């Protein structure tokens, strides 16, 4: 129980710090939201009127206090540009981001797990070296370059998948998934490398342990030694990296979302930042921060599930 409370306190502190920082930084941006709203060539009086109406004249900390007060009541405000409630905007963009994130992490796992296990088991072999070279090749390409390559191959040449665009889920799951395949693959082909490398190096260390020697002495088949005995104690860094990658994808897939014209959180946020549309920025940042802290919490739970020694550590401390 104390563990839960400390996590919640931690969450609140992080949320306060991050949202306040973004609020102040947005305020310092050179863009002028009032000019945007009043329209091109508006007079100074009109601009002042817009500023007065939006409360932009008040001190920044006061405006922040008003905003956070609204959040506490469950009101996230409205976009200054589209007048759409922020919660509606987030709700319509979040499924896109989540689906992209889930698919790309799934692909990354499907690549990283087998590749990591095999190259650790046969470390130093030609197979390990080929995997390693391919992996570094993937990692050294920026994901948008990879995206372009994939679009060229699968959309333009083979004409198997759409090049860009988003089909909502209610228009058919097949079409929806088709639209996500290339963007998810572009992200996964970069992300899997880190996952594979940390898993490989941790597994190599584990395979030198005495308990693996004993497992071999027990006459266990190789797959069982690798998957049952070696994999679980080697997963700590792997899970950490997986968690960090997942969290960063919530707001950080902007480039891929832009390349493939997917209406995700990242794009919503970047558009809002260019327009200085601070209620949307704040809402997005809040969402990302909360997800980060929650994913970290999940990762902590995973540690305990993976390693019983961590569990006793939690109850003792």
């Amino acid at each position, binding site marked *: 129980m104390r563990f839960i409370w400390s996590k919640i306190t931690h969450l609140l502190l992080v949320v306060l710090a991050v949202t306040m920082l973004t609020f102040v930084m947005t305020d310092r941006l050179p863009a002028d939201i009032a000019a945007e709203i009043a329209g091109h060539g508006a007079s100074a009086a009109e601009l002042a009127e817009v500023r007065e109406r939006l409360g932009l004249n008040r001190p920044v900390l006061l405006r922040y206090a008003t905003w956070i007060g609204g959040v506490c009541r469950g009101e996230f405000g409205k976009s200054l540009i589209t007048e759409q409630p922020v919660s509606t905007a987030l709700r319509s963009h979040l499924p896109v981001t989540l689906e992209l994130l889930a698919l790309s992490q799934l692909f990354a796992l499907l690549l990283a797990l087998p590749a990591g296990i095999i190259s650790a088991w046969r470390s130093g072999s030609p197979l390990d070296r080929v995997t390693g070279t391919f992996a570094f090749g993937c990692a050294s390409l920026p994901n948008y370059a990879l995206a372009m390559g994939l679009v060229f191959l699968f959309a333009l040449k083979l004409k198997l998948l759409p090049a860009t665009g988003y089909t909502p889920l209610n228009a058919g799951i097949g079409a929806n998934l088709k639209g996500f395949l290339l963007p998810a693959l572009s992200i996964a082909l970069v992300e899997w490398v880190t996952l594979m490398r940390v898993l490989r190096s941790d597994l190599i260390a584990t395979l030198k342990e*005495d308990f693996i*020697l*004993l497992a*071999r*002495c*027990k*006459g266990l088949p190789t797959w069982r030694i690798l998957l049952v005995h070696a994999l679980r*104690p080697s997963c700590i860094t792997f899970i950490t990296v997986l968690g960090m990658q997942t969290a960063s994808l919530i707001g950080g897939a902007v480039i891929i979302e832009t390349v493939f014209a997917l209406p995700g959180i990242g794009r919503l946020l970047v558009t809002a930042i260019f327009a200085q549309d601070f209620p949307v920025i704040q809402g997005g940042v809040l969402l990302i921060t909360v997800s980060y802290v929650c994913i970290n919490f999940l990762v902590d739970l995973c540690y305990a599930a993976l390693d*019983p*020694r961590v569990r006793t550590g939690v109850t003792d401390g």
Partner: protein
Amino acid sequence: MTGPDQDLLVVGGLTVQLQTEQGPIRPVDSVSFTLEKGKTLAIVGESGSGKSMLCRAILGLVPARGNIRFDGRDTGKLTGREMNRIRGRDIGVVLQDPLSSLNPVMTISDQIIEPMRIHLGITRREGVERALYLLCSVGIPRPEERLGCYPHQLSGGMRQRVAIAIALACEPKLLIADEPTTALDVTVQAEILTLLARLQMERKMAIILVSHDLGVVAGCANNIAVMYAGRIVEQAPAAELFRRMRMPYTRALFDAIPRIEDPPQRRLPNIPDLPPNFAALPPGCRFAPRCPRAGERCRTEEPALVCDEDRNHRYACWFPV
């Protein structure tokens, strides 16, 4: 009673060659011995004399040359799967440090039941029953409370008992115990040795007991083989060996055991220098550079393992004690 029917393990000319940066080395070099059913062979030597590597070679875990006959079968001719079966079912293994040799993220019961499920094909429920019985027989009180424990929740002695229970799970014909008491407190050491002796009586299994301490093996071994730099340098029935040690190295190991009747503050005699580097073995006798009795011949010509005919006592030395 001796004879081929009584022989459980016959090792002939076993050699392990490994590639290292300093060139090929042979941590096990032309080792031969015979172990009868139900008997104990102790393999004694300093750290790095090749004892553990010898065990791994017997288990088929490192590539080796030479002959190994286990229970009438030539293990060199077995497939990987058949060898797995021998390893898990017919040979049990206990390693030195029970904390590192038990899987930290698996419960005790899973680790005991695992080899039985793989090799004997029993159900989980039967496995739990047998695990309880095994834990009882290795002297763990209230075993039903221990089944769900993880290794870090047990004491060192308790962990080694669990490791022994795992090794015994499939009723092996041979137990290889590689320094089973080295990582334990002295009082616990004696308990574990007594336990091994009792289990051997009950189950009629053979034991290979590896140790760096002649004192540890004195009470429980039928035969003792002393290893130095990858070779057996002296081998004899225990009583015969303690009656008369022929090889100066064995003598030196024996003299290094502290004795209760020693006057206080007595300096224990130690063997000067370190065992030789496998990549740069001396010509002649491998022990010669550290041997007080070494003569000119020892430095040029390697002594063969010769046998004292009537007593089954073998040693490799030009100037035996």
